C-alpha cells in the first residue's frame, strides 16, 4: 500500500490547482450556481481538451488516458477544494464507472469515447424518491414489450439529471426484489415518456433532478438482471471519489478559518491567539487529516482492487462526511457574524458539506455498512 503520492501525481495535482484557481474563483461559482444548467460549457471544454480530465480513469482503448482511482480522486479533491461547478461527478464518476463495471466491451466502446472527450455528458439514475442508496431501493421497472424494454417509475436526486445527454438508469425486472433482477439501461434524454424536473437543491452547485419514466424506451446494457454487483462496485468507487472531494472542501474551510483567525483582531489580539480558537483549529486539522488518510487509503485500495473495498469506501465516506460538516460549522463559528452572511463564501462550502453528508448515504448508514463488510 502506497502512503504518499508520487512526484508525477503531485505535479498532476498542481496543474489542476492552477487551472481551478483561474477558472473557479468563488465569483464564478456564484455566477454558475445561479444558472439552471449549473456549469460553464467553455470551462468544461477546456477541462476536457486541455487537461483530459473526463478521460482520466477510462481505459486508453476507449479513448481514455488509462489512469486509475488515485488520479480520479486527486481530481475530485481539487474540485472539492475549489467547488468547481461541472457535471464531473455525474458523468466521469457515476456514469463512467457504471458503464465500465456493467456494460459489455462493445457497449463500452460505443459509450465511453464521447464521455472521455467531454463531448457527451452522462449521468447515473439509481436513487428514487424513497432516498435509499442501494440496490434494494430500486422500484422502477423494465418491462420487455415486443423486444424493447419500457421503463416505468421515478428516479430522484439524479445529479445533473436535467442537463445530462445520456442517462444510465438502474431498473428491475417486475416481480423481483433486493439485488435480484437489476439491470442498467441507457435512455436518451428526449426519450418518450420521460419527464425531467429540476429539484431545488440547498447546495446550488449540485443540480439534482427528478426523472419520471412512463413506458420510456431503454436499451439494456450488459447482461439482463445482473447489475447488482456492478452497481455496488460503482457506488463504492463513487463514495471514495466523494470522500476525496469532501476532504478537498474541508481543507479549503480549514485554510479559510485559520487565515481569518490570524488576521481578525478582537480585544487587541488576533483571535487566533486565543486558545478557544487555536484549539478548535487544532481539532479541525486533526479531523481533516484523518479524513484525508481515509480518503487516500481508500483510493489506493480501489487502485489495488483490494477485497476490503466496500468497507474502506464506507469508512472513508463516513469519516469525510463528519469532518466536512464539523469543519464547515467551525469555520462559520470562527468567522463570527460575517461567516453567516451570504456575501462571505463560507456558506458555499457549508451547503456542499451538508449535501455531501447525505449524498450516497449519511455517516450512520456507512458506519453500519462498514460493520457489515469488515471482519472484526
Amino acid at each position, binding site marked *: 500500500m502506497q502512503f504518499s503520492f508520487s512526484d508525477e501525481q503531485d505535479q498532476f495535482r498542481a496543474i489542476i490547482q492552477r487551472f481551478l484557481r483561474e477558472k473557479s474563483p468563488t465569483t464564478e461559482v456564484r455566477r454558475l450556481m445561479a444558472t439552471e444548467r449549473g456549469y460553464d460549457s467553455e470551462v468544461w471544454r477546456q477541462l476536457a481538451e486541455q487537461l483530459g480530465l473526463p478521460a482520466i480513469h477510462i481505459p486508453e482503448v476507449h479513448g481514455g488516458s488509462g489512469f486509475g482511482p488515485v488520479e480520479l480522486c486527486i481530481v475530485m479533491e481539487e474540485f472539492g477544494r475549489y467547488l468547481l461547478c461541472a457535471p464531473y461527478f455525474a458523468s466521469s464518476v457515476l456514469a463512467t464507472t457504471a458503464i465500465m463495471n456493467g456494460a459489455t466491451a462493445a457497449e463500452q466502446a460505443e459509450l465511453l469515447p464521447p464521455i472521455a472527450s467531454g463531448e457527451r455528458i452522462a449521468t447515473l439514475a439509481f436513487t428514487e424518491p424513497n432516498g435509499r442508496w442501494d440496490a434494494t431501493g430500486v422500484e422502477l421497472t423494465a418491462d420487455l414489450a415486443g423486444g424493447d424494454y419500457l421503463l416505468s417509475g421515478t428516479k430522484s436526486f439524479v445529479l445533473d439529471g436535467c442537463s445530462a445527454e445520456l442517462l444510465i438508469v438502474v431498473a428491475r425486472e417486475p416481480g423481483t426484489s433486493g439485488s435480484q433482477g437489476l439491470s442498467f439501461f441507457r435512455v436518451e434524454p428526449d426519450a418518450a415518456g420521460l419527464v425531467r424536473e429540476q*429539484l431545488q437543491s440547498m447546495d446550488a452547485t449540485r443540480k439534482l433532478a427528478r426523472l419520471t419514466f412512463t413506458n420510456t424506451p431503454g436499451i439494456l446494457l450488459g447482461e439482463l438482471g445482473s447489475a447488482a454487483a456492478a452497481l455496488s462496485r460503482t457506488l463504492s468507487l463513487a463514495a471514495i471519489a466523494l470522500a476525496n472531494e469532501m476532504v478537498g472542501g474541508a481543507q479549503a474551510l480549514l485554510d479559510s478559518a485559520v487565515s481569518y483567525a490570524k488576521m481578525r483582531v478582537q480585544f487587541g489580539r488576533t483571535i487566533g491567539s*486565543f486558545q478557544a480558537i487555536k484549539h478548535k483549529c487544532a481539532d479541525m486539522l486533526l479531523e481533516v487529516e484523518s479524513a484525508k488518510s481515509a480518503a487516500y487509503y481508500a483510493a489506493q485500495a480501489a487502485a489495488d482492487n483490494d477485497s476490503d473495498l466496500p468497507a474502506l469506501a464506507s469508512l472513508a465516506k463516513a469519516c469525510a462526511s463528519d469532518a466536512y460538516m464539523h469543519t464547515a460549522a467551525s469555520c462559520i463559528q470562527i468567522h463570527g457574524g460575517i461567516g453567516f*452572511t451570504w456575501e462571505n463564501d463560507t456558506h458555499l462550502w457549508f451547503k456542499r458539506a*451538508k449535501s455531501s453528508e447525505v449524498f450516497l448515504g449519511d455517516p*450512520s448508514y456507512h458506519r453500519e455498512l462498514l460493520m457489515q463488510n469488515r471482519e472484526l
Partner: protein
Amino acid sequence: MAESNNMSNYDEASLRAEVTAWLAANWDPQLSLIDWRTRLTESGWAMPQWPAQWYGKGVSAQLAAVVAEEFAAVNALGVASGGPGRLAAVTILEHGSDAQKAQYLQRILTGEDAWCQLFSEPGSGSDLAGSTTRADFDGSQWLINGQKVWTTSAHHATYGLLVARTDWDVPKHQGLSYFVLDMQQPGVEVHQLRQMNGHASFNEVFFTDARIAADQVLSKVGNGWQVALTTLAHERRLADVLRATAARSKLEGPIYEEERAETAIVMEPYQWYPQRAGRVDLVGARAKSTGAINDPAIRQEIAKLLIMSQTAEWTARRARAAQEHGRPQGPEGSLGKLASSNVARAASHVHTLISGADAMLTGSDSPLDGIIAEILVSVPAISIAGGTDEIQRNIIAERVLGMAKEPRADTGPFRDVPKNTV
C-alpha cells in the same frame, strides 16, 4: 436615577379600583392606535413603573403587574413595545436629560417613531467596546464617520442609538459616547445584509459626515459605555413581547388589526428565528413520517436531543423559580444561551438523519414546505448571534465560576491598541 424610584402610595386594591375605573371610562377599541396610545401615555397608565412625571405612576413591579392584569381583562392595548424603540425608551429614561425625555419618550411609546440600535461594527463584534466609528465635534455639532452592522430595522427607523468614539487617547471603554442620531439625513446610508439562509434580517449602516446636534449626547461625552450597558441589559426580551401580543391574536376590531400590522413589521426580520433553534418540536412527527423512528441508532440521537432540550427548559425554569422565591439567581440563567446552541446543533443533526436524501433539497421541494432546509442552514447563527458560544463560556467561567480573566492586550490608549483594518 432617584426619580424612577419615587414609589407611590397605592396599595393593590386602590390601584386596581383606579385602573379599572380609568379603563371603563377611556378604553375604546374604536380609537386609532395612535390616538389610544396618546391618551394612554398622558394618563400615566402606560408605564406604571415609570415616574409620574414621565407617563407613569411610580408603582412597584408587583403593582405594575396588577395594571397589566386589568388591561388584559378588557383586552386593552399597551404602548408600542417591540423592537429597539423599547431599548431607546429605557436608555433615555435612565440617562437622558429632561429635554431629551420630552422630545422622544412619548412618540416611542405611541409607536410614532421607529428606532434602531447602532452598536456592532464590522471590526468589533465580540469586542463591542472596540468601536471605531468616530464622532468629531466641529465646534457646533458632531460629525459621524464609520460603519455599523447587524442593525435590525435600520431601513425604517427615524432615530438611531449610536455608540461612537470621541476620544482615541484613553483606554477603549472610556473614549466612547452615546448619541441620538437622526437616521433621515443624507450622511446616513442603509444597505440590507443578506444571510446564508437567504433572509435579510439586518442592515449595514454607513456614515459619511452624518450630523448630530450638540444636545443629542445621552449622559455625557466619554460615558458612552456606561449608557450602552443599560441598553444591553434590556436586550433579548423579544419572547416576552410575542407572548403579550399573541394573547390578542384572535381579537377583531380596527385597533387590533393596526397592532397586528405593527407587530408584523417588527417581527419580519425574525421569521426564521424558530428555525435557527433547530425545531425540536418537529422531530417526533418527522421521525414517524419517514420511518426513522424505527432505526435504533437514530433513536439514540433523538433521545440525546430530547434530553438536552428538556433539561435546558427545566434549567431555565429552575432559574425563574429561584428568582420568584426571591433567591439570588443561580448559574442556571447564564447557561441558557450555551445550552440552546447545543440543542440547535443536535436538532439539526437529527433532522438530517431523519430526512436522509431530502436534506439535500430546499424551498418547496424540502420537507414541510422548506422548513427542514431552513433549519439546516439557519442553525449556525444561534452559536454566534447575541454573543458567541466562546464569549458565553468566558462569561460563565469568569462571572459564575469566578475564574481569572485573561491578561488583557487592550488596556492602553485606544489609539495604540491593535485593531482590524476594514
